[in-house]
């Protein structure tokens, strides 16, 4: 399985994402720059975390309007898997590839800590190596992770199993509605989440709870 990582000025988790994909898939991902209008033929496109364009205007707003995101949308429409982590999630909602919005944390503080995540839907391309309802650990580091959606959208997300990750055991770090930490689109190939699974994939990280997400997406046996 081949992957690509989207690079934008101001991202700072791109190296972590590239390292995780390289270690888990055995081959380095292709990289695409913000002005690229084509993405190589891959199975998975990852948009890493950081602060693209300095979080100017709104987090992810400028990045979502860059040429590379039109290419990401085209690939997503063809069924290619897309994962956006943290700022990547913010970019996907700003680009309209996922519903809702990510707002300032209810505490108004940047949070950098470990949280617990419940696998709310283990029947996705990204979570099939987890057990339904399994609780895993994951680092978070963000200022704007407070997921919001209007009541109809929320009801649809909940009803269709599009809420994939939920903060568990009272660890919601940002006040997100229904403790939502990650959602998937209705076709099931575009995932966005605030936590950083790429930062918990090997013993040196203190655990590998995030590894199964990449193994699921990349079709690698556990």
């Amino acid at each position, binding site marked *: 399985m081949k992957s690509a990582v989207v690079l934008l000025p101001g991202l700072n988790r791109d190296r972590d994402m590239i390292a995780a994909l390289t270690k888990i898939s055995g081959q380095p991902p292709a990289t695409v720059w913000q002005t690229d209008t084509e993405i190589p033929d891959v199975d998975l496109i990852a948009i890493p975390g950081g602060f693209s364009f300095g979080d100017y205007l709104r987090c992810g707003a400028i990045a979502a309007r860059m040429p590379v995101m039109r290419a990401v949308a085209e690939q997503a429409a063809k069924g290619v898997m897309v994962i956006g982590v943290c700022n990547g999630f913010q970019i996907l909602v700003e680009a309209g590839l996922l519903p809702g*919005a990510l*707002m300032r*944390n*209810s505490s108004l503080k940047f949070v950098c800590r470990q949280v617990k995540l419940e696998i709310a839907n283990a029947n996705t391309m990204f979570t099939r190596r987890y057990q339904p309802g399994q609780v895993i650990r994951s680092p978070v580091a963000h200022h704007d992770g407070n997921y*919001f959606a*209007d009541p109809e959208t929320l009801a649809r997300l909940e009803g269709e199993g599009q809420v994939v990750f939920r903060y568990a055991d009272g660890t919601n770090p940002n006040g997100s509605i229904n403790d939502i930490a990650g959602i998937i689109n209705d076709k099931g190939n575009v995932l966005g989440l605030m936590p950083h699974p790429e930062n918990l994939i090997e013993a040196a990280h203190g655990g590998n709870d995030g590894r199964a997400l990449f193994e699921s997406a990349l079709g690698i046996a556990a």
Partner: protein
Amino acid sequence: MKARITVTLKNGVLDPQGKAIEHALSGLGFDGVGQVRQGKVFDIELTGTDKARAEADLKAMCDKLLANTVIENYAVEIA
């Protein structure tokens, strides 16, 4: 031509920054402050002279970039 775009949060969308400002105003001794909602203002200079076209363009700018219409409303004023 000069235009001013005001972007505000929709009703029902929680505004933690507005809440913090509201508390800070009370802390400064300003009595009688109700709800505070924070928004954004964009002052935009336009080179054209066609007001109707400018208004249409400004609305498109809001829909495409300046506002996130999931959570925000906007108002366009042309001076």
